[in-house]
């Protein structure tokens, strides 16, 4: 019986884990931190299951917990790091020498991350759902609880704002 429950829970994790990660990432722009939030959110759900709580919509429950946890992490990371969130402090991830293309790409990614952090959480969320999870407009609309037409509009504006910010910072496409 316990094995069946674990298998069910593993399936739930495989089904919704990336979505929970994307939700946390959109709030915090920290891949490792988002992964910690995924683990924490699923661990909390598991405890609820163990306690016999009935959660009718685990996906909605997980996304809500992930959002709350991410908000808490953002606040606590601000206290730890002052005005600089962790990704800015940890741009350089390795001291190993890297090929020029990799360096250029990583530099572009670091600047993109900085610009993403300047966008609103709503813009980051819709971009994350589109590009991290590969969701189409209908899936994004279902996740965010909005109309498909609103998804097109929001996504278009988010992309435009990001492109403007990148151009203003002198960040060009990777060639």
């Amino acid at each position, binding site marked *: 019986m*316990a094995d069946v429950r*674990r298998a069910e*829970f*593993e399936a739930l*994790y*495989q089904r919704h*884990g*990336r979505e929970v*990660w994307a939700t946390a*990432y959109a709030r915090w722009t920290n*891949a490792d931190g988002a*992964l910690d939030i995924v*683990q924490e959110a*699923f*661990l909390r759900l*598991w405890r609820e299951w163990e306690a016999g709580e009935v959660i009718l919509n685990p996906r909605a429950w997980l996304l809500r917990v992930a959002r709350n946890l991410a908000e808490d992490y953002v606040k606590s990371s601000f206290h730890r790091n002052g005005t600089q969130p962790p990704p800015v402090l940890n741009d350089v991830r390795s001291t190993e020498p890297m090929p020029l293309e990799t360096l250029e*790409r990583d530099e*572009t*990614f670091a600047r*993109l*991350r900085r610009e993403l952090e300047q966008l609103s959480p709503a813009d980051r969320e819709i*971009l*994350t759902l*589109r*590009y*991290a999870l590969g969701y189409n*407009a209908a899936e994004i609309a279902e996740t965010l609880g909005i109309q498909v037409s609103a998804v*097109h509009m929001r*996504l*278009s*504006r988010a*992309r*435009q704002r*990001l*492109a*403007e910010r*990148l*151009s*203003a910072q002198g960040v*060009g*496409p*990777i060639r």
Partner: protein
Amino acid sequence: MNAFYPPATARDHNWSPEDLDALLRSFFQAEMPHPWPPLALPAERRQPSRGPLVRGRWLLAASLALLLGGTWFLSAKLGPGGIKPEPFSEHGAAARRQPTPPAAVRPADDFDAAPATGRWR
């Protein structure tokens, strides 16, 4: 799909929709953990066997039932309206409490042999 692409503006002229698409896709794919890590659930807690607990409860219930039943039985027997003492009559306990009468009269040969003290009169 084209609905995702914003109209070109003066400030983002160097970012074509395809370039921005490619950058965002590669960026988010690099950010997403690969491979997707397994879930670390806490080790399963072994539930203690419930046998001794159930047995203990049954034992407690039986003891309580015995105690209550015994109390009820004794109160029914000894309390008001219960067992009454036997009436005082010559057939009752008072009669039985009378001293044992002297032994039966001895045979005549014993009488003759006894001293004349008047004891056997």
